[in-house]
C-alpha cells in the first residue's frame, strides 16, 4: 500500500478509539499522505495541509483501504468498535487494532472475520518514533499481515513482530517505570520533580518517568497496569494508588483537574 499512488480505496484510512490516540495516529497517517476519516472530533490539530486530510464523518465509510482501532482504556468500547467495523466493512479490509490492554487473540474472538485482524502497539507519545511492535492471532491471514506491514512501512516505520501478550514490550516496561516512580512519590522518597531530575541525570532515559507518564497519559498507564494485573495476576503489576488520583488531576505540573478521559 502506497499512500500517494495506486487506486485501492483512494488510500483512505478510518481511525477510531481513544481520543488522544485517534488524534496522534490520524496526524501521522495524514502527514504521510493518507486521507483519514474518523467519527470523532479531533481537537488541537491546526496543521494546514495535513489537517485538511483529516475528515470527520458520521458513519463508517465503506471505501477505506484499512481501519485502525486504537482503544486502550475501555475495552467494552473497543469490543463495540471492532464489532461495528467487522459488520460494516467488506471482509477484505484489514483491521489494525491496539493490542496493548487486551490480546489480539481475545479481540479476534469478538468478530466474525478474524483473519483480517492484527494487533499493534499504540500508546500516546510513541507515534513520532520509528518503530511499531505488532502481534498476530492464530487467525490472522498472511494477506492481512503483508498488507498491514506495507501500510506501516508506508508510514516510514520499522516493524518488530512480538508474541501476542498484554503489555507487549515497550508499554510493559515504560508503564512499570512510571508506576515505580509513582510509588516512590507516595512513599515520600523524594519530591516528584526531584525524582525525574535524579532519573534524568542518573540514567540515560530520554526523560524522567513522571514526565513520561504525563506524556503517555496516566489513564493510559493505569489501563496497561490493570490489564497486566488481570492477565498475569499477583502483586507485581498492582498500580500505585497515586496513579489513579493522577488520572483525575492529569498530573503534577500545571494541569487542569477534573478533565480525565
Amino acid at each position, binding site marked *: 500500500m502506497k499512500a500517494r499512488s495506486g487506486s485501492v480505496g483512494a488510500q483512505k484510512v478510518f481511525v477510531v478509539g481513544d481520543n488522544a490516540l485517534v488524534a496522534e495516529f490520524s496526524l501521522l497517517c495524514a502527514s504521510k499522505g493518507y486521507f483519514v476519516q474518523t467519527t470523532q472530533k479531533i481537537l488541537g490539530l491546526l496543521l494546514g495541509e495535513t489537517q485538511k486530510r483529516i475528515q470527520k464523518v458520521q458513519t463508517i465509510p465503506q471505501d477505506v483501504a484499512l481501519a485502525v482501532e486504537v482503544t486502550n482504556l475501555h475495552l467494552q468500547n473497543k469490543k463495540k468498535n471492532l464489532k461495528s467495523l467487522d459488520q460494516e466493512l467488506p471482509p477484505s479490509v484489514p483491521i489494525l487494532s491496539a493490542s496493548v490492554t487486551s490480546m489480539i487473540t481475545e479481540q479476534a474472538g469478538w468478530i466474525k472475520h478474524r483473519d483480517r485482524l492484527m494487533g499493534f*502497539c499504540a500508546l500516546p507519545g*510513541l507515534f513520532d*518514533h*520509528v*518503530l*511499531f*511492535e505488532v502481534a498476530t492471532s492464530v487467525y490472522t491471514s498472511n494477506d492481512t499481515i503483508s498488507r498491514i506491514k506495507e501500510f506501516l512501512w508506508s508510514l516510514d516505520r*520499522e516493524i*518488530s513482530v*512480538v*508474541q501476542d*501478550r498484554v503489555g*507487549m*514490550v*515497550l508499554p*510493559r*516496561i*515504560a508503564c*512499570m*517505570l512510571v*508506576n*515505580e*516512580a509513582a510509588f*516512590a512519590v507516595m*512513599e*515520600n*522518597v*523524594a519530591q516528584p520533580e*526531584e*525524582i525525574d*531530575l*535524579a*532519573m534524568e*541525570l*542518573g*540514567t*540515560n*532515559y*530520554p526523560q524522567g*518517568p513522571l514526565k513520561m507518564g504525563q506524556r503517555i497519559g496516566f489513564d493510559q498507564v493505569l489501563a496497561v497496569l490493570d490489564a497486566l494485573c488481570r492477565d498475569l495476576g*499477583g*502483586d*507485581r503489576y498492582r498500580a500505585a494508588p497515586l496513579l489513579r488520583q493522577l488520572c483525575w488531576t492529569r498530573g503534577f505540573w500545571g494541569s487542569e483537574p477534573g478533565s480525565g478521559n
Partner: protein
Amino acid sequence: MAIESPETVGIVGAGTMGAGIAQVAALSGCEVLLHDLSASILAGAMDRINRELEAAIQKGRLDRMSKREVIARIHPRPDFHDLAQGALIIEAALEDLQVKREIFSRLDATCRQEAILATNTSSLSITTIASITKRPDRVVGMHFFNPAPSMKLVEVVRGRDTSETTVQAVVELAKRFGKTPVVVKDSPGFVVNRVARPFYGEALRILGEGIATVEEIDRIVKKEGGFIMGPFELMDLIGIDINYQVTKSIYEQSFFEPRYRPHPIQKQMVDAGMLGRKTGRGFYNYPKEN
C-alpha cells in the same frame, strides 16, 4: 544559617569511586585526605587521577598549572588517624554492611566531634550505618554515580536521625563539587537504583516469557521508546553481577516485594561467569580485540 563548606575532605577507600570523588573534591578547591590501607591501591588511585587530569588537559578543559595544584591538594594517607583533620569524611569502601559499620565506628572515635560522616553507599541503610556512631545526626548518605568525575547526580540520603544542618551542608558541598544534589529518604535503592528496577526486571520477564528476543527487546525500547540504550545492552555494560546484586539487595530489603524479584536468567548468567562486557560475554558477545 550560612553553612560553610568544609575545606578539608577525607575519603576512605581509594578504589574507582574513592579516586573519582577525590578528583572531584580537589578540582573544587578542597584539600583531600585520601585514605586506603593498601599502599598500592593508593598509588593506583593517584595514577588514575593523573591520567584523568591529563586527558582533561588534552581536551582543553584544564591547564597544566591547575593540574599541578589539583594533584597537590590530594594527600594520600595510609594512616587512618590522619583523617582526624577532615571536616567531612566520605566513605567509599566495600559495599558491605559489616565493613562500613567498622569504618564508621573508627571514624566516630577518630574524627572531630563536629565532623560530618558521609557514606557513598548505593544500597545500604544510612540509619543502620549511623546507629553504630554517637553522632547519628551527622551521618548522611552521599551517593555518587560511576564514573564520579562525569556523572552530575549525587543522591543526598537523609537517615532517620540526620539533621537538617547536615543535609544542607552535604547539599552545598555537592554543589561546590559541580554536582546536582537530590535529597532522598533512606529507603531501599534510594531513587535511581529503585526506580530503574523495572527497566531490567520487566525486560528479563518479557525475555523469559518468550515474548521477544534480546535483540528485538533492545531494538523496540530504543526505536519505539526513544531510549538511548536497550535494557540488555545496559546490563552488559553495568555488569550482570552488579545489576543482579542491586536487584537482590532491594528485593531483600523490601521484604520480597514482587516488583523487585530478580530473574533466574540473571542468576544463571552470574553463576556461569557471563557478566557482560567485562567478561566478553553477556546477553551479547564481545569478541576480544587482538
